[in-house]
């Protein structure tokens, strides 16, 4: 049986925060099984793109569309987008005091099952082994299951927990916003392996936002895009990332003008 390919198609997307224009016409299509890396200087709109696609209320979409399997998502609530199969790994994951990681993830998983027409819900007994295995993959201690979501986690633990959440929720398209920032080389390898494993298992499509080529040594992108001033100014394969590492953004930015 051939698995149906999921597609997120972004066309001419413009978005503002207040009066400030941040996205100025993004065109990008992400399909199941593909890894897209977006690189670019600070303030180029990379994080905004993720947040707009996930439905952050702070941003206003002024033009364009984003369709998931042909369905417009820009007028949906973030939770509805999540239930279609979108996921955002946060650059700065939030702490939720008093809500245990295990309970929260099972709730999120069951809400997703329910929203997708599954009548069966996962019991704590069924959920625990799955969660423990996933945490094992990310080399996270089981004690995190009973701890409050992200509360008192180190920067690296938060990033690993984001990947645990992704692996549990099994999205179709995942956007990972600077998942590599603040990670030492060992943690980086663990996170990359977690992403690769999830990709192998579920065949999801990934949009990686990163500043550094370093992450791409462990996750091989199919496409690399360079973003500046709210636009994708250049796209290529993994060689483009190497080139950026060597020459910096300056040259490409100049050429693009």
């Amino acid at each position, binding site marked *: 049986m051939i698995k149906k390919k999921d597609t997120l198609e972004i066309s001419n997307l413009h978005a503002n925060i207040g009066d400030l224009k941040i996205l100025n016409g993004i065109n990008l299509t992400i399909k199941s099984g593909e890894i897209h890396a977006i690189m670019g200087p600070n303030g180029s709109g990379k994080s905004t793109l993720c947040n707009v696609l*996930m*439905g*952050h*209320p*702070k941003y206003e979409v002024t033009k364009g569309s984003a369709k998931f399997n042909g369905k417009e998502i820009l007028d949906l*609530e*973030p*939770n509805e*987008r*999540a*239930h279609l199969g979108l*996921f*955002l790994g*946060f650059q700065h*994951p*939030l702490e*939720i*005091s*008093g*809500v245990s990681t295990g309970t*929260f993830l099972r*709730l*999120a998983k069951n*809400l*997703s099952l329910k*929203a997708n027409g599954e009548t069966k819900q996962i019991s704590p007994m069924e959920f625990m082994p799955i969660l423990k295995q996933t945490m094992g993959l990310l080399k996270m201690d089981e004690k995190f299951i009973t701890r*409050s979501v992200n509360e008192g986690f180190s920067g690296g633990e938060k990033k690993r927990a984001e990947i645990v*959440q992704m692996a549990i*929720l099994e999205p179709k398209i995942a956007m990972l916003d600077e998942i590599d920032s603040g990670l030492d080389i060992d943690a980086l390898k663990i996170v990359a392996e977690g992403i690769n494993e999830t990709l192998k298992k579920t065949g999801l499509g990934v949009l990686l936002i990163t500043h550094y080529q370093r992450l791409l040594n462990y996750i091989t992108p199919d496409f690399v895009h360079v973003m500046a001033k709210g636009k994708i100014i250049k796209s290529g394969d993994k060689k483009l990332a190497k080139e950026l590492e060597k020459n910096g953004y300056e040259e490409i930015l100049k050429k693009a003008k």
Partner: protein
Amino acid sequence: MAVPKSTQKLIKNTLDDYKFGFKTKNTAVFKTPQGGLTREIVEAISARKKEPKWMLDYRLKALEIFEKKAMPKWGGDLSGINFEKIHYYLQPQDKPKTDWNDVPKDIKDTFEKLGIPEAERKFLAGTGAQFESEMVYHSLQKELTKKGVVFESTDVALQKYPEIFKEYFGKVIPAHDNKFSALNSAVWSGGSFIYVPKGVHIELPLQAYFRINAENMGQFERTLIIADEGSSVHYVEGCTAPTYSTDSLHSAVVEIIVKKGARVQYTTIQNWSTNVYNLVTKRAFAYRDAEMFWLDCNLGSKLTMKYPAIFLMEPGARGEVQSLAFANSNQHQDAGAKIVHNASNTTSKIVAKSISKGAGRSTYRGLLKVSKGAKNIKSHVSCDALLLDGASRSDTYPTMKIEESEVAIAHEATVSKIGEEQLFYLMSRGLTEEEAASAIVNGFAKPIIKQLPMEYALELNRLLELEMTGSVG
């Protein structure tokens, strides 16, 4: 300025979601007329109860104090209380029953709807149920009766145990303590009397449920708990009332004596309808190596003013107050705690958490006092407030009176507003805005809720969820 649509919706939702607002048709056996509190009313109550003369005298003296004392100017807005309209005493049946089958059907139905007989069967050592002014039902497990434990309606205890009653009644909270303790002392009726003999530990909780049913009702129960040396007891009270357009008044007095080495936990889960003024005085005296723990959860009511107090009277005594308040639209929760260190080597802890929503207002008002001569005192106070929107309000008034130097006192206070980023984070994981807000609120309240016995924790979580429905305008 017009009330925004979202707020109107919120108010409507809040009223609609109060599932305890049903009324029961009940014809009182006896009730005092409206038109204000008079000497005749107090005499009629006492006569109806066939009380000894000392109690009538006590009541009449309290009435004088009540009349003399001015309304408190601090705290919440009390101007809406109309003393002329209140029924001060309403007797729903002749006397308390010990078998649910003997309770009149309409009243029994009410308590069945509230799940009381079921709770009794499942996890309680004893149960009391007050309807309007009287305890209509009271029972205690037989083996506890054999051990000498007393759990009775306070009225019954006055008749059956006159000596011990007179020894302790009004000693912890005298009538002149404040205007509302004076009012209660004049017209008190019902409540629980508990005596736990030396060395007896009551494993399961004793519970009393207080139900106001009639309109313009004044409920003035009086509870007195005496834990003798080395004993322990956990008492739980629950309260609800129907929703009326007019206001009712609940003004209880609770006195507790915790003797040497004893432990008392007093847990409140109050969920009054939004037309109830809840003005309660609660105080405990804890003696050598004794421990008093107030666990106070305040939902509902129009205005609550309640500051459970602990006087640490002898060395080694320990006091703790943990409280949770939820102020929704048109509500003011003015709550807190008072701890008085009257002896050396005493310790105390206060944890107060409040949640304000839909222009609701919560206030923490606390007193921590270390008396002259009390040395080696440890105390920890923390107050956290969570605001769910910009229209809600939270204030903190911690008062400290420290007359000694050998003290270790820590005080922390935080106010946080539920954040857009937090909501977005949870929504990106598939929770609706309402579910996300609810999760944050439950997480915030968890340190308090987890102290409750499981059945009550489940109930409180459910109540919080009800308060959170309609949170999105």
